[in-house]
Structure formats: C-alpha cells, structure tokens
C-alpha cells in the first residue's frame, strides 16, 4: 500500500470521493441561491428552511399517504415551489425596489418562522426516513465502500445542475430571463410578463432547494434545524463562486466539498472552518468571487 504525505492512499481516495458527494449538496443548494440572486437580486436566507421543508414534505408523503421516495422527488419540489410562489407574490415581490438588506431581513425572518413552526409541530429530534429499497446496499470500490445511495446523490445533483445551466444559458426562455434581469422595463415593453417570470424563477430556485432536501432526507436527520446547518456553508460557496454565477456555484460547490473532505483527514478540527478561510482569501484576492463579474 503506498502512502501520500504519510496517509494511506485508499483513505485519501475515499475522502476525495466523499468530498465530491458533499460537494453535490453544496452545489445543488448554492445553485438555487445563485439563480434567485442572479435573477431577483434577493439574498434568499430562507433557502435552508425551504430545503428542510422539502425533506419534511417527503417524510409527510411517506408517513401519511404512503407515497415513496421517487414520487417525493417530484412532488416535494412542486409543493415547496408552490409555497415559494405564495411567498414571492405575497411578500418578497414588495421588496425589489429596496436595498438588498431588506430582502435579507425578510427571508431571514421567514426562515426563523418556518423552522419555528416545524419545531413546534414535529419536535426537535427529527424523523426517520429510510433509503429507498432500490438504492440500498453498497459497492466495494477497492479503496472504499461506497453506498449506492451516495452515488445516486452525485448523479442526481450533476444532472440537475447541468439541466439548470442549460435552461438558463442555452434556451430562449433562459435568454429572456437573463434579458429581464439586465433591463426589466425594456423586456416588458416587448410584451414579456416579467413579474410572472420572476415569480416562476423564485419558485424554481426554491424547488431546487426542496429537491436537495429530499435527496438529503435518507442521509441526514430530518429535523427542523437541518437547513440551518447547511445554509451558512452554502452562502460561503455562493460568495466564493461569485454571487449569481451559476457555473461558479456548481464548480465551487464541488471544489469546496473536496477541500473540506481532505481537511477531515489532515486536521479534522478545522474541517468546519476551512471553507470560510477559503472565502476570506478569495474575497481579498477577487472581491467579486471566482466566477463573478465585477460590478
């Protein structure tokens, strides 16, 4: 067995792979945030709470209606997306003309309310959610034991990231959307219903969070705080990648997952901090983020 920097190579490869898996979650969550910020200029602090809501909807579907994982993967984003439409129409849409800070405060308040309600109704220790039967078991990769479900998470996240990127960068719909963020008045003058597009964009971003929530349900404890644990890291990812940059959030999501995974081998105590260290360095060197355009 050969070693790298005194660590057995299999252990290191294993950690790299785990980093990619965690990076998949970061990428998926920061993608939704980046879409919402890029298109709406809203710093959606409620993203973590909506991620949690996605997991709870999946749990509720199974517990009360007997609807399993695969349907939940479709239904939970729809349900949470619809909830996002209500939020946007009712509250967030009133803040577009104001400073970013107001949007941040509003969504932060919403996050606290949603999490508080969940805690009140479901308690704080969380709910069990099993791995679907078809994804149970594990593969022996020689250097590590890879649960099939984790492999699936990476694939699903990659497909979702790619699909989002294609829709926004390569389709006429995405082109209109990007034009609307550049100059809403002009696009509206062409007869495009811009407010509707913005509402649907918010719903789409939120649905991505819910999708990640369903993916996370079998791995993490389905509890009201699960989003709060992620959101800070995800914000760091978005900032490092460049606010609003879709490619940036995907690449940084995976990249930071790997960096974090390696830190867990070399100096575990720092693994929760390393992302923020990277953030500080990136902000000092490139204030707009790795992939962001300087304003």
């Amino acid at each position, binding site marked *: 067995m050969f070693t790298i920097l005194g660590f057995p190579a299999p252990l290191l490869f294993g950690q790299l792979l785990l980093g990619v898996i965690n990076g998949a979650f970061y990428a998926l969550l920061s993608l939704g945030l980046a879409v919402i910020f890029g298109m709406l200029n809203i710093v959606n602090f409620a993203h973590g709470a909506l991620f949690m809501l996605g997991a709870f909807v999946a749990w509720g579907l199974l517990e009360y209606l007997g609807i399993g994982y695969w349907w939940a993967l479709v239904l939970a984003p729809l349900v949470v997306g619809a909830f996002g439409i209500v939020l946007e129409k009712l509250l967030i849409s009133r803040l577009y003309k104001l400073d970013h800070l107001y949007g941040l405060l509003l969504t932060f308040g919403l996050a606290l309310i949603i999490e508080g309600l969940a805690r009140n109704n479901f308690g704080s220790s969380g709910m069990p959610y099993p791995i679907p039967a078809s994804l149970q078991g594990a593969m022996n990769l020689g250097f590590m034991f890879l649960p099939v479900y984790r492999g699936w998470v990476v694939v699903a996240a990659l497909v979702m990231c790619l699909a989002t990127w294609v829709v926004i960068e390569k389709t006429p719909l995405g082109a209109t959307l990007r034009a609307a963020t550049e100059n809403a008045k002009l696009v509206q003058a062409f007869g495009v219903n811009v407010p509707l597009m913005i509402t649907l964009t918010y719903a789409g971003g939120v649905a991505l969070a819910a999708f990640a929530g369903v993916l996370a349900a079998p*791995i*993490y404890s389905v509890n009201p705080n699960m989003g709060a644990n992620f959101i800070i890291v995800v914000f760091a990812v978005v900032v490092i990648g460049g606010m609003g940059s879709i490619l940036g959030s995907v690449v940084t999501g995976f990249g930071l997952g790997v960096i974090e995974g390696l830190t867990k081998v070399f100096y*575990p105590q720092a693994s929760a901090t390393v992302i923020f260290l990277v953030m500080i360095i990136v902000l000092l060197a490139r204030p707009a983020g790795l992939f962001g355009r300087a304003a």
Partner: protein
Amino acid sequence: MKLSRRTVLGAAAASALPLVPARAQKPTLKFGVLTDLSGPYQDLAGPVAVAAAQQAVEDYGVAGKGFAVEIISADHQNKPDVGAGIARQWADRDGVDVILEVANSAVGLAVAGVAKDKNKVYVNSGAATSDLTGSACNANTIHWVYDTYMLSRSTATSVVKTGGTSWFMLVADYAFGQALQRDASSFVEAAGGKVVGSVKTPFPGTTDFSSFLLQAQSSGAKVLGLCNAGADTINSIKQAKEFGITSSMQLAGLLVFLTDVHSLGLEVAQGLAITESFYWDLNDRTRAFSERFKPKAPTRRPTMVQAGVYASALHYLKTAEAMGIAEAKKDGAATVAKMKSLPTDDDCFGKGSIRADGRCIHPAYLFQVKSPKESKGPWDYYKLLATTPADEAFRPLNAGGCPLVKA
C-alpha cells in the same frame, strides 16, 4: 376567531378560578420547570417534562391535602445567561420554591449558582455534567437522573466485558464531548480494553460524519464510541449504517435518549448499546407510571429526564409535607438537607437515596436497541443487557471533589 361578550366573560371567569384556593389561605408551593421548550432538548425534556411535574402533583394527591401547588415553566433557550436570569426572576419576583429539570450542562451549572444565592431548592434532571455533584456542588442542588460518569462507566465497562475490547472514539469537539471521551476512555482501559484512536468532529456545524466514520473503520477497532449528543449522534449512527460500519463495528452511544432512538427508527438503531436509568417498559412500576402518564403525552413515552422531573417533584412534595410547608418555603438548603435524609421511592427509579454531594443514587441499566422484528410496537425499543447496582453506578462520594463531602 370572533370575540363575543360571552367568550370574554367566560375567559375572565376561567382566569379568575386559580385565585380561589389562594383566597382560601392554603399555603402554596411553587414549582418552576426551567427547560428547553424550543431547541434540541425539547423532545427529551421540554413540555412533557412540565407535564411530568403535574403528574407528580396529581399522584401525590395534593388536591386532598392542606396545601396547594402551582407549576410555572419557562424556556431557557440553552443559554446560560437566559436560564440564570429566569431563575433569579423566579426567586425574586415570582416566589418559586423549587426549580426542576434544566437540561443542558452549561445552563444547569449556571442555575445551580442562582439556587445557592437565593437559597432555593434545585433538582436537576436533564444536565449531563458530573460537576453538578463534583467541583460545582452546593447545598441547594440535587442531581437526579444521570451524569457523564455513570453513562461512560456503565456503557464502556459492559461493552468491554462482552468482547468489545478495542475502541475508536468519535468526539464532538467541545467541553461535553471531551469530558465524555475522557471518562469513557478511562473506563475502557480500566476494564482491560484499549482505545486505538479518536477523531474530534467540529461542533456545531458537522452534518456529514462519513469521513470520520471511514477513519474509524480503517483503525480496525471493534467498537465505535459515540461521544456526542442529539442530532450529531443521530447523523453519525445513520451514516454508520449507510457505510456498512455497523456490520464490522459495534456502536456504543454514550449519551442516547429514547427519543433519539425513536427518531432514528429501529432499522437503523438496532444493536446500539445505551445506558439509561429509566425505561418506561422496565418493570411493573415503570409500566404503571407510564400508563398513568399516557393521557398527558399520548403519542410518546417518557424519557429518563422526564421521569426524573416526576420523581424529584414527588420527593420534594414528600419532604415538604414532612417538614411543614412553611418551613420548606423558608429555607432551600434546609429542605435539600431533609431531602437527602429521607430515602427516595417512586415508580420510575424505585428505592434510592440522595448522597451528601447531592447525587441521587439508583441503578443504571445497559440496554440494547431491539431489531424491528423483536419490537412489538411503537416505543418498544429496548432490551435489558445488564444492571449496575446503585452503589456502583455513580462516582464514589469522595472522588468528585465536592466541598460538601469533607464537611
């Protein structure tokens, strides 16, 4: 809801009702249940712990006696300053005589100081730290249910005896996790086992334990000791199962509650070794208590922390009646001294006693979580593996460094 004159009058009449006994000049004992009503310990303590105090009042038959009991509760939000502030306010303004529960070691220690300053009775059920009856002990404080010493002694010793001789510790990187690691490691070694490695996981903020779990697996140890609590424990157990760790290593949870097992589900939690001092289905007395308690929490079974609130409230009532309500209200330290001199006896913990350092003594039970096949229904989760007798379960009286012991 539309407010009609009738509902307003009705509400006014209802709110006036509790004043009636006071007008009848019955002396009133006031209980303050200070707990986590909105955070991570809400399920293992929380509102059900308040209901447990109420149950004690009913079971003691206070209604038929010459005094009344009023119970109030508050949320300490897991912040020592908030908890100590509420305790102070209860003592100064609200006339609270006894403070119960207080899960969370940091808050638990802060409240102990207040209880001493204000000379109130303080019976802690939910905090884990053994310092409450060690270096931080005082004449106003009793620690009822469990502590880090008892948990690590019972779990570590028993697991080593049954063949789990080499351990790897997964440690939440803060005071509580490190204390648990220190205690557990010393018991593993005392029992002839060996700790081959450990990893400290950042706290809070770790949701994915798979990297750490793989390190544990590659260490070749037979047992994975979980020196963490709450969501950390749940996530690490869930992921250990996912990565197949459970097939090569035995998991030993050093602080796991019944509600954690419920949240994990038996499919994932099965086989886990856990120490508790109360389990609802342990014997006829605990079952009788749990049935009586059921109307107050129909969908769940009480945890040892909630049972501790019941037992300590009951013992306090017994003591207060024996020494006279007026006497009990006057001097907290004297009441605690009397509580220590009377033997304890309740349905949850059986017969026991309270030591000079404030430690309540009763047996500790090592359980194993059942497999889904073995479980007959909801909350049927544990089977008993071993019992540590009361006199061995806790830290020896002279080893804790409690100043009260020398006196």
